[in-house]
């Protein structure tokens, strides 16, 4: 039967049909739905791992143990998992392993737009790139076959547009896959220098064999058209080329590492003008140039952002529809913002009020960096807040640390905040770390994690106790506060910042989107008392609006969830409980 599926669901289906029985991931847009979809199949094991390195290591174990295994992460997750990845490329697999890297050209939800095809090239592993959900399913199955045939992990590189576009998919039957036998094989799996030297030879042999395979693989194909232009492309940009340049000849690559050199050279001889259309880095273009073939690419198309059919038309046909109506420049931007009732809001209001330097991290709370809250000084990558604070302190001294906090979410703390906190204790820092424990991984759509006490399938499990954890690594000053009680929060901050010792404050309150019961309290603004000072507007909440003409604030009852934050901020007690 044919039905619509987003790319991520199709990948999960492909793995299932290939007989994969283990799947691991740490959530991250745009990859999250891959393993959450896989977890819904019967007779499989799926987990949210604490981070991507663990996800890949569990995947490696499952593969060596003989199971076909799917591992998924967003592009920056592969950085976290890069250490095991490079060496796993040496050992190779037992049961096939497909690692999905979900890249984010255009940074819809990411802190950078690195191009992970580069990992495939450096680790010398095959990289497949599907262009719609049907291919996502098929390439995933193919990936498992190639993984076992060539004894290598296979990377499937997708982008946001593939991950989150629904296209028609014809599903197939689940293949019976018998888990492979396990036999100790230290020369293959124990990467001591002596063994690794031998394996490196295998890696180089393997990439040559893969190159040969690429020449004849059905993954790569030519669609002949007008030969005045020949386009080499892959992934979703293939669809944009079909849309914008239906007449040209296309060499569509389904496998982007290694490249089919002879096929490309032959194609280049038959077309007048050869153009590579690839988002982000000139990965394909530079290799073609290194063979002495004349090709155009990044001199025409940007290194930045996501491509589109109109971009291709604009570059190659000179047609532009950019701001036809001249309206775009007068429209205020609409960045994302914290939800009404979000427990993070009061934290950033307070940090700003106390004029603290804030080493930030990644999660919904990163939105606290935006105006009007303006509550963050740095954000680098997951887990970086705590190390950054430590570095600031060591550079500028303990006095500086008294006016500085590290802010990190609960999921992010478990992902990569524990080791830097150990560093603070070990190397005698005095920083104050604020863990925003909203009992979920909110940013990526509310996944469970070790400190929520539930697994990927919502089964209860041993709950990681954050208080006991931080105490056990040597933090003696630990407080738990409710971030919606601003006094409580501010007092805790004052107290802990004043100590020349490391401290942890856990701001504990569930995400407003998962909180089991709404407060039920309604508020109104007393127009007699409101002075129009706009202090309440500075918390950036859609639950309270400002009337420009009347110069007073009013509640927006459609949005307000009655969290009670703004009444605490109003200096004139103008925001009152509505008695019903």
């Amino acid at each position: 039967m044919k039905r619509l599926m987003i790319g991520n669901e199709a990948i999960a289906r492909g793995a299932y049909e290939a007989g994969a029985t283990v799947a691991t991931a740490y959530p991250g847009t745009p990859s999250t739905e891959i393993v959450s979809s896989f977890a819904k199949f019967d007779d499989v094991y799926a987990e949210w791992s604490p981070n991507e390195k663990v996800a890949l290591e569990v995947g490696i174990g499952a593969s060596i143990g003989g199971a076909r295994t799917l591992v998924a992460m967003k592009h920056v997750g592969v950085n976290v998992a890069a250490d095991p990845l490079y060496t796993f490329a040496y050992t190779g697999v037992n049961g096939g392993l497909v690692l999905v890297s979900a890249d984010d050209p255009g940074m819809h939800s990411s802190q950078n737009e690195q191009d992970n095809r580069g990992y495939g090239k450096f680790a010398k592993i095959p990289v497949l790139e599907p262009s719609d959900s049907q291919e996502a399913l098929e390439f995933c199955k193919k990936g498992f076959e190639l993984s076992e045939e060539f004894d290598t992990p296979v990377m499937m590189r997708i982008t946001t547009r593939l991950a989150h576009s629904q296209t028609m998919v014809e599903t197939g039957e689940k293949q019976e896959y018998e888990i492979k036998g396990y036999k100790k094989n230290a020369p293959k799996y124990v990467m001591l220098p002596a063994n690794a030297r031998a394996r490196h030879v295998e890696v180089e042999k393997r990439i040559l064999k893969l190159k040969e395979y690429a020449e004849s693989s059905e993954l790569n194909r030519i669609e002949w058209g007008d030969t005045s232009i020949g386009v080499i492309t892959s992934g979703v940009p293939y669809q944009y080329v079909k849309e914008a340049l239906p007449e040209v000849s296309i060499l569509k690559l389904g496998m982007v590492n290694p490249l089919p050199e002879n096929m490309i050279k032959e194609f280049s001889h038959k077309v007048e003008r050869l153009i590579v259309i690839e988002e982000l880095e000139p990965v394909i273009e530079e290799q073609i140039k290194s063979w002495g073939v004349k090709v155009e690419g990044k001199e025409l198309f940007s290194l930045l952002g996501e491509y589109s059919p109109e971009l291709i038309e604009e570059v190659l046909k000179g047609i532009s529809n950019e701001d036809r109506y001249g309206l775009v420049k007068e429209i205020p931007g609409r960045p994302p913002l914290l939800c009404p009732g979000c427990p993070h809001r009061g934290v950033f209001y307070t940090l700003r009020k106390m004029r603290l330097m804030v080493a930030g991290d990644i999660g919904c709370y990163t939105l606290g960096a935006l105006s009007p809250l303006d509550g963050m000084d740095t954000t680098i990558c997951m887990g970086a807040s705590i190390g950054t604070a430590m570095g600031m302190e060591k550079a500028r001294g303990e006095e500086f640390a008294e006016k500085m906090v590290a802010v990190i979410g609960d999921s992010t703390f478990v992902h990569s905040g524990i080791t830097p906190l150990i560093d603070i204790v070990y190397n005698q820092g005095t920083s104050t770390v604020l863990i925003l424990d909203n009992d979920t991984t909110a940013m990526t759509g509310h996944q469970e994690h070790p400190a929520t006490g539930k697994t990927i399938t919502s089964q209860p499990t041993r709950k990681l106790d954050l208080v006991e954890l931080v105490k056990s690594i040597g933090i003696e000053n630990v407080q738990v506060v409710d971030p919606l009680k601003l006094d409580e929060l501010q007092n805790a901050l004052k107290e802990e910042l004043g100590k020349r010792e490391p401290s942890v404050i856990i701001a504990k309150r569930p995400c407003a989107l998962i909180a089991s019961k709404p407060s039920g309290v309604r508020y109104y603004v007393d127009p007699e008392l409101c002075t129009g000072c706009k202090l309440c507007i500075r918390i950036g909440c859609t639950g309270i609006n400002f009337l420009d003409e009347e110069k007073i604030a009013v509640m927006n009852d459609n949005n307000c969830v009655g969290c009670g934050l703004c009444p605490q901020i109003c200096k004139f007690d103008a925001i009152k409980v509505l008695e019903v």
Partner: protein
Amino acid sequence: MSKQVTDILIVGVGGQGTLLTSRILADVAVQMGYDVKVSEVHGMAQRGGSVVTQVRYGKKVYSPIIKKGDADILLAFEKLEAARWLDYLKPDGMVIINDERVDPLPVMSGKVKYPEDIVDKIQKLIPNTRLINATEIAGQCGNTRAANVVLVGVLAAVAGLPVKEMENAIRSLVPEKAIDINLKAFEEGMKIIAN
């Protein structure tokens, strides 16, 4: 060359239910036997940011995203968002706007003013513009949250989509207890165009 693919751009503010709307439309297009592609927004923008979902159907669809200047219909859940995405509309396309204002952060923080005359401007540029009070109509049907389905009704009437298939799609995609309200909202949306 006449267009082979119908392109519908659905825009709004994260959390307004654009995803459900696109899924209903896509479901109907599948029931009608078309090739369909839908591009969705997940992740950060869903937290109150500007969101766009795109539905394309026809005999054969390549790109999952609509080419700027090609959309047949622009369905906007919020006035400012209609203006933001107007370039995507084809010159003789139609704009359906929910008469709803949601202030973005820069307006909330007083940095800029909400352009009050934005709908007038759009109407001058695109004669084929309909302003619909979907939130109010949905309220009359029992829940303002069904505003997106009122708009689906308007769109179905405009695009000539089959009613029975639309109703099937709504039944299968909205939560059990909200089906009646949503079917009513759909019907009221259809009526606006019929009248």
